[in-house]
Every structure is written in C-alpha cells, then in structure tokens.
C-alpha cells in the first residue's frame, strides 16, 4: 500500500524506518463539499443579482428611486468574489472526481487543494464580511453619522434578497472551512510521526 502512495519513493527510506501510513481517504466527502460550495456560490450570485426594487421617493420630488446591487461597490465585490469561488469550485469538483481512483494523483492534488482552498476561504470570507457590513448599515442605519439612515423599511424585497444571499455565502464559507479541515487531516495522516 505504501508503494502506491509514494511514487518514485526512496526504497532505502522505506526499509530503514517505519512504513509510511497510507493516509485516510475522504475523497467522497471532498467531492460532495466542493459541489455544495459551487451550488452555494451560484445561488448567492443569482439571488443578489436579481435583487431589484423601485420605490417612489416623495422628498424632494416624487420620483421612482431604484435599488440595485451594483449601486454599492461592496455588493459588486461580493458578486465578483462569489463568481470566482463558483468557477474555482466547479474546476476542483471535476479535478477531484477525475482523481478519485488514482492514489498517486490524490497526494499531489492535496497540496494544491489546501493552497487554493485557503486562498478561496480568504476571498469568500472577506466577501461575506463586506456585504454583511454594508447590509447591516442598510438594515439598522447609524445614528452617530448624520445622513446614514436605514433603507430596509422602504426596500424590503431588496433587503430580503441581499440578506438571503449573504446567508448562503456564509454557508459557503463554512463549507470552505470544512474542506480545508479535510485536506489538513488527510495531510496530517499521510505524514509519518
């Protein structure tokens, strides 16, 4: 079993120390989690892009005033970051599926997975925080700063969409954390102690 996990491994190393552990194999969970991440990113992007609401504002003139996601740079960043995450997750789901019965490739993939998963965690967590911060301001307003009033009592449908999208992105962050835990556990089990 050790020979399949160490392609081109040093035979002297194998005989002079304890045989390297085969390592746990949780690639089934890996594929499922990556697909969940893809689904979460897709849903979050679609829900926030379709958040459109127009209300008539009385002051100073009765004009229809729209609310769209692209009116806030925070939400634009959110959409961009989640799109990148969606693209990444579909690529890695396919890579993981492709490597499901090639043990030598799996170990090499683990290295890349933990690197890119960590970067994607940074991206999706920051996107969730960014959109969450601005959405909280829209929900509660800020009484210390003059003029930063809440808008969600007027734009209720818009706020519901944005809130749901952020909740799904939060779920996506949790899935990414689980993916990193899985890769880290697999790597720790492959390292002989």
């Amino acid at each position, binding site marked *: 079993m050790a020979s399949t996990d*160490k*392609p081109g*491994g*040093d035979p*002297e*190393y194998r005989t*002079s*120390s304890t045989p*390297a552990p085969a390592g746990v194999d949780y690639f089934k969970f890996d594929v499922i989690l990556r697909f969940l991440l893809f689904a979460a990113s897709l849903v979050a992007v679609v829900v926030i892009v379709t958040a459109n609401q127009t209300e008539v504002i009385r002051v100073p003139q009765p004009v229809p005033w729209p*609310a769209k996601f692209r*009116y*806030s*740079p*925070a939400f634009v*960043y959110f959409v961009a970051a989640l799109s990148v995450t969606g693209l990444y997750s579909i690529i890695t789901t396919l890579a993981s599926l492709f490597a499901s019965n090639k043990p030598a490739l799996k*170990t090499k993939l*683990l*290295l890349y997975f*933990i*690197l890119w998963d*960590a*970067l994607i*965690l*940074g991206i999706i*967590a*920051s*996107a*969730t*925080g*960014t*959109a*969450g*911060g*601005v959405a*909280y*301001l*829209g929900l*509660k307003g*800020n009484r*210390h*700063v*003059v*003029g*930063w*009033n809440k*808008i969600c009592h007027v734009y209720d449908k818009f706020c519901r969409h944005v809130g749901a999208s952020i909740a799904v992105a939060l779920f996506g*962050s949790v899935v*990414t*954390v689980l993916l*990193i*835990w899985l*890769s*880290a*556990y697999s*790597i*720790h089990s*492959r*390292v*002989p*102690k």
Partner: protein
Amino acid sequence: MEGQSKGSFNVMEGSEGKGREFVVEKSASSIVGTCDLVLRILAFLLTLVAAVVIGTDKQTAIVPIKLVDSMPTLYVPVAAKWHYLSAFVYYVGANAIACAYAILSLLLTLANRRKGKGTMETLITVLDTVMVALLFSGNGAAMAVGLLGLQGNSHVHWNKVCNEFGKFCDQVAASLFISLLGSIAFLLLLIVPPVLRLKQTT
C-alpha cells in the same frame, strides 16, 4: 526545497543507520517548526498593532450646521470614535480574538514539540482556518464601511465623512493595511506547514 529534502534523504543510503537518519529528519522538521513559530509571532504582532491603532482612533471636528437659512450657521463639535460603527467593533473583536489565539497557539506548539502528538497539530490547524475566516471577514467589513465613509453613496444619500475627519480615516486605513498583513500571516500558517511536511515525506 524539494532538492534540499532529496539531498538530505540520500545521506541515509549509506550504512550509517538509524542515528544519522534521525538527525536528518529532525533538521528537516525543524525548518517547518521555525517557519510556524516565526509566522505565529508575526501574526500576533500584526493583529495586536492593528487593534491598537484603530482602538485609539478618535477625532473631534467642528462641523458647520445650517438649520434654517435665516439663522446663522451653528458650529457644533462632532466626535468620531471607532465604536460608533458596528463594522469597526466587529473588526476590533476579530483582531483581538486572532491576537489572543496567536499567542495561545504559539505556547501550545512550543509545548507540543517535545511530545509530538498529532491530534494537537490537527486541532491547531482547525482553529487556524476559523481565525483566517474571522480575520478576513472583519477586514472586509471594515474596508466596506471605510470606503463608504471615504466616498459616500449617492444612491442612498449616505454622504462621505472623511473630508471632515481626515485623521480618523487615515488611522483606519493604516490599521486595515496592518490587519491585512496579519491575515496573510495566518493564511501562510495554514498553507506552509502542511505543504512543507508533505513535501518532505514524498
């Protein structure tokens, strides 16, 4: 790095035996240990500085307010404190938690080096990922609110604040930059030790 580890393993091909191999393995794993230590100290310092820089941020400015055209303009002193904004409170909380965790995990990894238990390492990696997520989300929130203060948002009539409170905004920007470096240190903590360990065994 790969060439270095291959070279160190070739030493064992001789008839030296277990003694030489143990010394070689220890030097390879001590690189990972030193890396880990340095990154944790860096992360601790950076998050501490970021939290302190924004925690001491306060500015009072005289703002002219014109209520009615007939009355003269009132000059009101308005204070800007970091805890007036919930996003900054979350950001300071995230940095404080990350700072405390960095010093705790530093002590734990130092204590764990003698015993070499695998479960402690996995637990520390588990908590590291949570810290990365927390820090990055805090950074994002503070950056979004800071940008709002800098540019305002004409669509929602949220006017910008940084033209009045320039020093406040500058300090927030400096703190954000330092916290970003701290987040990258935590990110490297997640990536570098497992990659180095896996590369030295394959």
